[in-house]
């Protein structure tokens, strides 16, 4: 059983809640990060993009 503090609330675990939502990054910073990432992969994505996409054909599954 969790120990209770004076207000009768359980003490927070010392480790941060692993599944607590991270604070939303500022939209600007996040947009920049996205642009940086796209710049990083742009070169490899453009190489034979059409041929690459077209060559992915497989029978259907369930």
């Amino acid at each position: 059983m969790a120990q209770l503090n004076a207000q009768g609330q359980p003490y927070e675990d010392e480790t941060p809640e692993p599944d607590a939502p991270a604070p939303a990054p500022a939209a600007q910073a996040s947009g920049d990060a996205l642009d940086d990432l796209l710049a990083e992969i742009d070169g490899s994505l453009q190489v034979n993009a059409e041929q690459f996409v077209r060559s992915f054909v497989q029978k259907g599954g369930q």
Partner: protein
Amino acid sequence: MIPTDIPPPLEVDPARRIFGLETEFGLHLDSAASRAVTPEEVAGHLFHSVVQWGRSSNVFLTNASRLYIDVGAHPEYATAECDTLTDLIAMDKAGERIVQDLVAGGEERLRAAGVEGEIHLYKNNTDSAGNSYGCHENYLVRRRADFKAFASALLPFLVTRQIVTGAGTITRTPQGAHYSFSPRADHMWEGLSSATTRSRPMINTRDEPHANAELYRRMHVIVGDSTMAEPTTLVKVGATDLILRIMEARAILPELTLAREMQAIRDVAHDLTGTATVELVDGRRLTAVEVQQTYIELVRSHLGGVIERTEEVDRILDLWQRGVDAVRTQDFSGVETELDWAIKHRLLMRYQERLGCTLDDPRLARLELAFHDVSPERGLFAKLQAQGLVRRIVPEEAIVRAMTQAPSTTRAHLRGEFVSKALESGRDFTVDWVHLKIAGASGTTVLLKDPFRSEDARVDALLDALATP
């Protein structure tokens, strides 16, 4: 000596449920080789190491999950039985890594066979020719005589939930390209059916509970998209579970029966504005936003009653509501790090802007494949997560653990122990969802009919038998 008495079924809290997720991966060899290499051949090389240790390309792993090659040479991973959503998400993400770990060996075998190339595995639902493969959700439900009516009652929810849980995709038509909520929606042909590849229903009604058939049935939902982001998987399975809990409590459901489900699922998928309406049998026309909002209100009305209020339930409701709000207001920024369709939409729009191209440009299709590529190096998703552009729910350690260890609170624990010990012992064994057997030894088959039971004296004896040469 293995005891033969099968223990009675456990008394289970009605809120406790067994979940499972089955994922068929897209398999793509990118190669300049002069000879054609079939997906079957690539899959054979990919699974070579599995066959080496498991003597089959259809195996159960030490984490109690199943790994095999399915129809169409799709590598498939079916998670072990989980009774919490966090376990389920960890097992699902572990599966991506388990299949990805086969890639280097597969490429090496191909090279030895004279084929240079890269193998890509996609957690998506369609190839470039429009063939579809699935992500199947399993919910263990209590058996009832009116299963078909029960399952049918879930359809209005399943048709419209894609505005929150869809993976999003660029749809190409002769009239041009547009962005849709769900790549799977166009492949649905029926509401309920016991067939899967022939007719593609939303719910497969094959009566195969993998458990005590007197007590349970499996709700086998096959309309959903494979989802990459952990929060999307949480709301996909979590919201569906909440609706099932209300249905299983035999509470009154809002009257939302759809007049034409197949038309409705397509109309909803192809309308990113959320204003398209679906026709109900009572003649009303509602938007998917309105239908989903009705379900959210239904769940809220049962909080503290049928549905115990927990942090997880609050989190599911919060994201579910924000997803519906995003579509209603057409401001996707509130969910663009959590819901697959919104994450991808942002990514594709940004790249389109950068390239100054139209939506049907092959480079955008290439980006879409990169998003679903489960490779941490060649794929994009891992990079988005690392940059904080996609939120996570499950700690990294839990995913790493789930690659080798079964969930501890369900039957999976017993199977995981058995597979681990049997592999250590070097003895031949056979395993499926309900059986454990040491080959050759008579009387050593254990039948596990209760998926909620994680302890069993018969399995202890079986493990002892493995430990004694």
